[in-house]
């Protein structure tokens, strides 16, 4: 099986879909001739032409609006937002239009648009190239929200997203584009070829939306994570030396509450991890849901380990980043609580 990093996996998903379905178009800033600032669309314009892989003006709001119009006209646009930090100019078109079109027309109109964007910090991008705004989108009903943690899932989930008739916001954690970063930034970078999820079939396959994956089974505590933080959680579990169950949520909306709650009901303890700021972040919803579903099984307060409630500072990425030490400390806290 070919080995791919997450960039290549995304590229391969787009390639497969452009090849299979003439209604798929790829669009965004610098995605055409250049192949995208993260190279996710490299070679696609050469292969499919300027009409299928379209360089756009720098206007995220215009990109999503045009994609909606194309979607209404039967295409399946895959729009790239160059950084998740730059999605806000498109917010109105996503929230007021893309998410609500099917509802407000009782199903008569809809637009199967996928909006891809790299998110997350750890690349020295400062406060405008590091954000994780997924929490905001999870509060908007009518859009699905996906964030893979590895190349295999990335390709399979992106194919599912493009094939899905509902709009999908697809977050790509850029810190793991090239390798499964575990939070230890001192260590030399590890490539995806060292990871089993770096094996990615060349052709078409899907990973279903709305299905979480248990990436490590364990009995003592459940860790809920997604994206980069899945790997960081793994490192934290090694550090803490506990028998933790780690769940990679993969799709945030609709959420696979069954998988996550049955795990917590089993372990009785829960740590939630994300890179986004804490207050009203997606971890709040996870915590609230777990509390509602698993209250009588909980042996300790659910802990959230997240980015601090500040913008992502350029100089202090690693003080900001919720690394293995902080997660391990939280695991310890829930293990010791009584």
């Amino acid at each position, binding site marked *: 099986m070919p080995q791919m990093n997450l960039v290549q996996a995304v590229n391969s998903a787009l390639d497969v879909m452009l090849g299979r379905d003439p209604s798929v178009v790829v669009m965004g800033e610098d995605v055409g001739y250049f192949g995208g600032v993260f190279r996710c669309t490299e070679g696609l314009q050469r292969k499919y032409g300027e009409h299928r892989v379209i360089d756009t003006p720098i206007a995220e709001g215009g990109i999503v609006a045009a994609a909606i119009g194309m979607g209404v006209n039967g295409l399946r646009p895959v729009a790239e937002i160059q950084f998740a930090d730059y999605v806000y100019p498109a917010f109105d078109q996503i929230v007021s239009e893309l998410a609500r079109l099917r509802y407000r027309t009782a199903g008569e109109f809809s637009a199967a648009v996928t909006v891809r964007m790299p998110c997350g910090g750890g690349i020295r991008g400062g406060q405008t190239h590091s954000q994780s705004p997924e929490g905001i989108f999870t509060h908007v009903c009518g859009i699905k929200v996906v964030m893979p943690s590895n190349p295999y899932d990335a390709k399979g989930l992106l194919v599912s997203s493009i094939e899905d008739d509902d709009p999908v916001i697809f977050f790509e954690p850029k810190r793991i584009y090239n390798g499964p970063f575990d939070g230890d930034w001192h260590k030399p970078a590890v490539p995806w070829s060292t990871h089993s999820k770096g094996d990615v079939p060349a052709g078409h396959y899907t990973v279903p939306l709305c299905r979480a994956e248990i990436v490590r089974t364990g009995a003592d505590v459940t860790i809920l994570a997604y994206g980069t933080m899945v790997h960081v959680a793994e490192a934290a579990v090694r550090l803490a030396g506990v028998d933790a169950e780690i769940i990679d949520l993969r799709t945030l909306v609709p*959420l696979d509450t069954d998988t996550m709650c049955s795990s917590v009901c089993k372990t009785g303890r829960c740590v939630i991890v994300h890179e986004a700021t804490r207050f009203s972040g997606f971890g709040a919803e996870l915590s609230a849901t777990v509390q509602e579903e698993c209250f009588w099984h909980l042996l300790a307060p659910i802990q959230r380990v997240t980015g601090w409630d500040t913008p992502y500072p350029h100089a202090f990425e690693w003080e900001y980043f919720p690394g293995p030490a902080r997660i391990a400390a939280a695991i310890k806290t829930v293990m010791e609580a009584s």
Partner: protein
Amino acid sequence: MAAHESRLHIPPSPARPGEPPDFSYLKTSPAGSVPRPEITAPLVTIEPLASEMVRVLDDAGTAIGPWNPHLDPEDLQVGLRHMVLTRRFDDRMLRIQRQGRITFYLKSSGEEAVSVAGAMALRPDDMLFPSYRNQGLYIARGRSLVDLMCQCLSNTRDMCKGRQMPVLYHWGSGNIFSISGNLATQFPQAVGWAMAAALKGEDRLASSWIGEGATAEADFHHALTFAAVYQAPVILNVVNNQWAISTSQKIAGGELSTFAARGPGYGIPGIRVDGNDFLAVYAVMQWAAERARRGNGPTLIEHVTYRASAHSTSDDPSRYRPQEEGRAWPLGDPIARLERHLEVLGAWSADRQDRLEKELDAHIVECWREAATYGTPSEGPSLDPMTLFEDVFKEMPKSLARQRDELKALLGG
């Protein structure tokens, strides 16, 4: 920081209640005076049309000049019928709202030519992206009034299943896009739709309408930029009815330049047209459609008209404009002007007009009677509340099904 020290320019206030109406700011051109460029003409040749005003009907009701579309009287009669139906439908729905039988309504009175002539100049498979003040598009394309009424009633036959306020219609098979409550969003969506049509090699175009007030929104800029870059087959219509709720078109940026003039700055021809002149609107739309179909790209059209009624049933214009302003509007009424023209052609009479109105009124009453059988707030069948959980996604996720069940239990179902 007293007001007199301030150097901030505030656009001059329009005539306010108690003041005489003042349309001295309005620049018009004599009927027949503006040249009609070839659709392949270079932008510079077309540019003057952004500050002139294309007009076909002169004061006597005669059609003159190069923009005269030379429509058959039969077609004009159809246009008149659509306009009259639109107006009387609006009037009736307003009364129905006042009786508390629908929650809200919004009329297009005085602006009927913009929609009706526009729709008639296009093909049925061209895709329309309207604002909330384009009911004439629905009428001209033949949507049953019953369907429109059921939408306003949020009843069992409501195309929106009770989810939208009245008048926010849509019509998939009629190629009319959903009306959003959020201003201007449809403008760049129309451009995307048109890009897709071009991309697929189809011979269809998109046309969208927004108010002059809404041109200040980002979407207007995105629409013009994308339309220009990709030369999309789209007609972008600004309906300048002089008012955006309580603020005049000067607050929207109409003091120093026309809205049509935005176009050339982006590389798009801009044409200003007398929006109350059915023939002029038809001709300009036809010209723009031709351009789009021949691959010459987008056109921006400013329809100069007047919002003769309140903004909506939530509005009371006597608070912010002179009551007599409508009568002082220099471009008259689109229906009266087309009637006059048909009379000049010998194809209309007061009597026919009278009969038409009676016929249409009867039709409206009959439609309302039927619509009411599908449910009104006070009687008849009512929509199942459980439908409120549908169509958020194509398939209802489990979590939403649980919420539905919770409501069902609560309602004792």
